């Protein structure tokens, strides 16, 4: 039996992600790493085939939604020899608590990987209190 690495996440087409649109829209769910430190959050998402122009990041309340449009790369007339992955749009959402500064969020796209940084607001950061010895 052959197991494909990305079957678990990539190949799951989610038709339920677009409620109320009247038509079934399906997306791939990109694999992500999420880190948090004192300054804020860092999200890395594998979105091969997307371009900087095709990626949208929208904050709605405390939810950040990542959407990326991915065009088909195989010509329609292609005579397929091997078909192990499908190509399609990406979507994934992240919910933050109220401690992030949405306006200062930034994103960078390099080699098919999107990096999003979302800083925490000042008051949510841990503050070190200097102790002076009197």
């Amino acid at each position, binding site marked *: *039996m*052959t*197991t*494909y*690495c*990305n*079957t678990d*996440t990539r190949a799951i087409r989610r038709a339920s992600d677009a409620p109320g649109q009247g038509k079934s829209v399906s997306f791939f769910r990109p*694999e*992500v*790493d*999420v*880190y*948090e*430190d*004192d300054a804020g*959050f860092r999200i*890395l998402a*594998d*979105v*091969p*085939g*997307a*371009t900087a122009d095709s990626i949208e990041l929208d904050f709605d309340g405390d939810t950040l939604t990542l959407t990326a449009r991915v065009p088909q*790369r*195989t*010509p329609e*007339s*292609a*005579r*397929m*020899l*091997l*078909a*192990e*992955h499908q190509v399609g749009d990406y979507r994934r959402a992240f919910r933050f608590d109220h401690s992030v500064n949405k306006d200062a969020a930034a994103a960078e796209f390099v*080699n*098919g*990987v999107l990096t999003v940084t979302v800083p925490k607001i000042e008051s949510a950061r841990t503050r070190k209190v200097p102790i002076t010895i009197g």
Partner: protein
Amino acid sequence: MLTLLNRPTMELTRPFAEFDRLFDGLVGAMTRPWAIPGWQTCLFPTLNAWHDDKAMYVEAELPGFRVEDIDVSVRGEELTVRGRREIGQAPEGTNVIRQERWSGEFERTIRLPFPVEADNMTATLKDGVLTLTLPKPAEIMPRKIRVKQG
């Protein structure tokens, strides 16, 4: 059709991979006695391949790879793609909330369905997608034969 010759030579380090394998082993052993833990590894990267009159094309999704991380070679009838990606350790003081992206090495070999001009092979890496173009030699390109009026 292409023949898949092998699995990745090295295990890809993915979170829960060990659990998946154990689970596969436990459940698999009940339903499929031949499913021994560790025997199953996943294929990476997945490949799409197609051809037209001029060439064969092979495509792999390799996000986060740089050109120097990938090695492509053709030997006889076999095409091999090797690569490596390091995610790196999270710096100290960083809380890892989620880690789904893998790091490690891979190697995949496929058998080519027809001879190709390996010297004229091209590889492009764009936005995390590797595309190989393997031109067909002139002798296997389709030829139109003109029908003469008798």
